[in-house]
């Protein structure tokens, strides 16, 4: 090889090189015992709105303890990646909000402080916390990796006027009724049900609920994936069929991933919506609380053998502390502050969610229909998503498979048992 060829070869190596390079970065953990960095999840209408909500509370905390908390509200689309980067690099915030379904996945990295009984005592005690919420804070049999902060559950939101116009007197209690009502409501450019079809997480949450109702599981007792069982195939097909077969969902919803389904419901373009604590979001979109009703998520009219009476996951936000924090005592006192009765009432009231501590739940602020429905669901018919290390991978793979099925349905391709099973088998093969 001549020198020129060697030069060319080197140039080729360098030109192609940028591929393998990747890296994460994060803010340095607060070094001083008087400061903390906090990543909050996006609970309100916008990142800015959340900052406005949180800042007075953080100021209050600084007044009480002298610890200054710097908050950054991280959008949901980035949160998991950034948490992973922080876990991998040992750099980043001291205290974070995590989606409670990720608890076991993040726990597996070993980057989060474990809340054993003594640590739980330091943040206010285990007995205060709602048991269902605490069950969704880490893998079973291990100390929780986080502390519940906000509790939520799915409910069925329906437009009262659209229902009245179509002559429907009560919200559906079964999926069969929902499809039937939906057909009556899908006329004149309006649709029965709005679905966030391109959002893998939303899809995966529904995959869990439907699978429970059909008697399925996504993981066996050893934590191995069981994606393509007949129960799961029926469950996913039932959900996709709202668009593919019943045609009560606008095909455009196959593109929705930025909460456009909530907007469609707020604007009256769709008459029903399955969502968690949608109230505060609907309010910011100028839909008054008396314009919609809130009901429990429906069940199957005749559940198959093994079908469970579950109509929501135990949804919620947990608060976790990174082991790399240089101010663990300060971080724990911040967790204690955020889970105190007073803060729980203030924050959950703003976000339309429910307190994760029993002592604050009795506040009259949580007696509206929406909160009562959520409360009832959480107590009676909600179940936690599988708390296994591969949970976040399940959300991504199954959620994405459903996104592709919605895309097929939207573009008129048939969605059959076979095509659903093929997608789920593919997804399962990608789990290792």
């Amino acid at each position, binding site marked *: 090889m001549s020198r*020129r*060829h060697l030069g*060319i*070869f080197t*140039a*080729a*190596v*360098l*030109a*192609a*090189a*940028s*591929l*393998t*390079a*990747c*890296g994460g970065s994060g803010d340095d953990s607060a070094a001083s015992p008087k400061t903390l960095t906090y990543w909050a999840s996006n609970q309100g209408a916008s990142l800015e709105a959340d900052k406005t909500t949180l800042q007075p509370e953080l100021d209050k905390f600084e007044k009480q303890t002298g610890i200054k908390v710097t908050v950054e509200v991280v959008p949901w*689309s980035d949160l998991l*990646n950034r948490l*992973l980067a922080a*876990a*991998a690099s*040992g750099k980043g915030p001291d205290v974070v909000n995590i989606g409670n379904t990720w608890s076991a*996945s*993040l726990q*597996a*990295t*070993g*980057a989060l402080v474990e809340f054993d009984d003594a640590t739980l005592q330091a943040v206010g005690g285990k007995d205060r916390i709602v048991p269902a919420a605490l069950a969704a804070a880490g893998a079973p049999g291990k100390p929780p990796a986080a502390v519940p902060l906000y509790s939520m559950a799915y409910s069925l939101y329906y437009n009262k006027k659209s229902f009245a116009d179509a002559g429907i007197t009560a919200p559906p209690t079964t999926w069969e009724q929902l499809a039937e009502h939906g057909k009556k409501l899908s006329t004149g450019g309006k649709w029965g049900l709005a679905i966030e079809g*391109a959002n*893998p997480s939303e899809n995966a949450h529904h995959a869990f609920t439907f699978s429970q109702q059909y008697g399925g599981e996504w993981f066996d007792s050893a934590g191995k994936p069981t994606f393509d069982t007949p129960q799961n195939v029926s469950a996913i097909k039932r959900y996709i069929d709202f668009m593919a077969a019943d045609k009560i969902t*606008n*095909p*455009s919803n*196959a*593109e929705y*991933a930025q909460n456009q389904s909530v907007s469609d419901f707020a604007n009256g373009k769709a008459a029903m919506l399955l969502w968690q604590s949608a109230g505060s979001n609907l309010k910011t979109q100028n839909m008054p609380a008396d314009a919609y009703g809130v009901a429990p998520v429906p069940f199957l009219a005749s559940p198959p053998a093994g079908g469970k009476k579950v109509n929501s996951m135990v949804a919620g936000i947990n608060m976790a502390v990174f082991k790399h924090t240089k101010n663990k005592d300060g971080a724990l006192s911040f967790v204690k502050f955020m889970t105190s009765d007073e803060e729980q009432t203030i924050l959950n009231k703003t976000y339309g969610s429910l307190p994760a501590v029993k002592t604050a739940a009795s506040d009259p602020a949580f007696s509206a229909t929406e909160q009562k429905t959520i409360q009832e669901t959480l107590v009676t018919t909600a179940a936690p998503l599988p708390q296994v*290390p591969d949970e*976040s*991978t399940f959300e*991504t*793979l199954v959620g*994405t498979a459903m*996104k*592709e099925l919605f*895309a*097929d349905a*939207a*573009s008129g391709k048939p969605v059959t048992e076979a095509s659903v099973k093929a997608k789920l*088998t*593919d997804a399962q*093969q*990608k*789990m*290792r």
Partner: protein
Amino acid sequence: MATSTTAPDADRREPRAGSPARRPTRRPRGPRRSLLPYLLLAPAVVLELAIHVIPMVVGVWMSLLELTQFHIRDWSTAPFIGLENYRATLDLNSAAGKELLHSFWITLAYSLLSVGFAWLLGISAAVVLQRPFRGRAILRALFLTPYALPVYAAVITWSFLLQRDTGLVNHVLVDQLGLMNERPFWLIGDNSFWSLLVVSVWRNWPFAFLCLMAGLQNVPGELYEAAAIDGAGFWRRLRSVTLPMLRPVNLVLLLVLFLWTFNDFNTPFVLFGGSAPEQADLISIHIYRSSFKTWDFGSGSAMSVALLLFLLVVSAAYLLITNRRRDDHA
């Protein structure tokens, strides 16, 4: 060219008449002088190591580990599994292998079409704007705008334009022109590939235009005059004068555009938001999904390394072939 090569040597060999006592300055020796080039090179070498070579080596190392969320905090605990990641991702009978191959073909088609159209648009615009006319500067600036816009802002705008219900594209095609009865999807299904291609060409062609415009400045006007006297028309001049004179520019331009397009991450990521539809599942997005979304950094790295090797072979082969041709011509 041949006439000027001897001049500098001749100068050096004969010291100027005015300085008879001066020692010959050819081949100076001494530690200061010999260290200097290395010192000058050092910053570039350090940066090259830090930005390219070390991450590459780390990437190769990662591809040999079972690097999942259990080990991401402390890589030393990750089991060494040798070529297992490669076997799993490149096994064309498995779902992962089939998808990688599918993604590879999609990416290849996307790159070739995108580079082809970008080059075609670039050369057309450059030739049209070669002669001065009123408003040429404005057109040049206008043509370069897509290249000057930040990629995120530009592609987000495209994603709004292409939405089915609220996008401007469907508004024009369906509501105003009435060309279609049904509103087509542009961001999911088969059309998503073409949407991605259009956005990519829109972003890349100004770069081709810029390079080719610069290249055209070096084509001597006499060649065109001579060709015109010989009776050559527009197409003949383009074929026999413009394109041969642009050959050196084209060689680099096509390779660079191909590598950029093949590796393009930003355009599909912003357009489709993380998980692209199957029909537009470019390899960069595919690798991202394998690494970050499923938290399997080992197999993500294995795909990256395989891709790196492929691009290396393509680039080296391209350069070798094009250079050999140039040698033949010389």
